[in-house]
């Protein structure tokens, strides 16, 4: 394999707008962004509550979420597969091997990351922050909003970490999506497939796009934190 020639070919495919290639990229972004859009608000709310309110089962919920942080995506995929398969509890919904199933899986993968990182961000807040909002007459809801806004760099880190994890995961997408061309084939599943078929150019092109997405996420985080890190 001539790596240089293949890479050249890969960029040719990207810039010539190879429709199949861009369809794959589109699936990845669509699924992951939708999963994040659905997961963010409730997960951040739960993370905030875990950090600020004491209630029965709080410790357990924290432990569960921390445990799930380390869960292999392929196991999430397996569980979801069993639930969605024809004999499964939700088999009648006919969701297996659809993009919706992939979205569901990625939501499950994103939730614990968002919850745990938001919780640590809020816990790291200055105790005077909430005393100040209270003393200035803010309601609990406004206090929550202000706290998240004040800790926005930590919360943002949670969002970017979760996005980084879901956009690059392959286990769950492969299991419940099925890697169907033009439908549920996303960047990671396509890279694995193309490379194993010997289509290195496609693999490189997609790998490059995945790197670009991941780097964009990292750079935007570094940019935002660079501004906010200054005291």
């Amino acid at each position, binding site marked *: 394999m001539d790596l240089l020639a293949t890479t050249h070919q890969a960029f040719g495919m990207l810039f010539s707008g190879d429709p199949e290639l861009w369809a794959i990229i589109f699936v990845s972004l669509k699924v992951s962004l939708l999963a994040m859009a659905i997961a963010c608000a409730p997960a951040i709310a739960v993370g905030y509550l875990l950090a600020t309110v004491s209630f029965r089962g709080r410790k357990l919920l924290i432990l569960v979420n921390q445990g799930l942080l380390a869960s292999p995506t392929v196991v999430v995929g397996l569980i979801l597969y069993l639930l969605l398969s024809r004999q499964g509890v939700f088999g009648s919904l006919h969701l297996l091997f659809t993009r919706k199933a992939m979205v569901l899986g990625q939501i499950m993968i994103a939730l614990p990351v968002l919850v745990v990182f938001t919780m640590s961000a809020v816990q790291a807040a200055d105790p005077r922050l909430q005393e*100040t909002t209270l003393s*200035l*007459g803010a309601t609990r809801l406004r206090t929550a909003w202000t706290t998240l*806004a*004040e800790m926005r760099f930590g919360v943002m880190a949670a969002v970017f970490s979760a996005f980084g994890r879901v956009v690059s995961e392959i286990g769950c997408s492969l299991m419940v999506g099925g890697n169907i061309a033009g439908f549920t084939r996303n960047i990671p599943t396509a890279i694995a497939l193309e490379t194993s078929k010997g289509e290195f150019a496609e693999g490189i092109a997609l790998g490059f796009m995945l790197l670009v997405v991941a780097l964009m996420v990292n750079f935007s985080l570094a940019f935002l934190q660079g501004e906010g890190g200054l005291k």
Partner: protein
Amino acid sequence: MNEPLFVIERIQKQFGARLVLDIAGLVLHAGRSYALTGDNGAGKTTLLRIMAGLESAQVARALYRGQTVDLGAYPEWLRRDVIYVHHHPYLFRASVKDNIGYGLKARGTPRRERERLVHESVQWARLDHLLASPAQKLSAGEKQRVALARARVLKPRLFLLDEPTANLDAEARQQTVDLIRDLCDANGTALIACHDQAIMQLPGVRRLHLQAGHIEARWDAVAPGPESIGRSPGAMAARPLIEGLQWQPVAND
């Protein structure tokens, strides 16, 4: 004679087994200002925080403008009347303007009105030139002035200020003292924890002295000199209500 604004009977605060605050009674009169003095660790901050509803304590009875209030379940309306300003104020990661406007926004003040009030408050604190600056970048003195402006703009009945001039350089301290003098003159009621002679000697400021968790004595700035009501059994004997301070026998004596 001014009406009592805040009357609290029997305030006790325990940290573990240690009784850090044990005050028989405290009366603050509307329109008066009080300097709360005492050594570090005497309980000044704790007392202010209890009154602001930021710290729990055992309180026998609290009356605010004649109405019984539960400081443990601090009512929302009382928060709107009483403002606590931290020793090192916390400023939001936002402009000076947004910091000062925060409380008004929380109260739902319309934008126009809010801007007018913020503007007025900024001028009062001589922060005009910093209106758009990020609050995090201000000096300690400027931060303190933003915090005072942020409190004043809400026109609370009672200011609880925790060592507003500590750790400031001479110039910043003088500017802060000037603002506090103005707050005290403007018919507001203030309870100011401080070690600062300049605040204690402001006209009309009465002094409450906390010693090891007990209000020990009171000096009146107008007529200086301690009016001792120490905790010695003799001195403790049934002192009726005196201004600024009510003394009653304490059960665990």
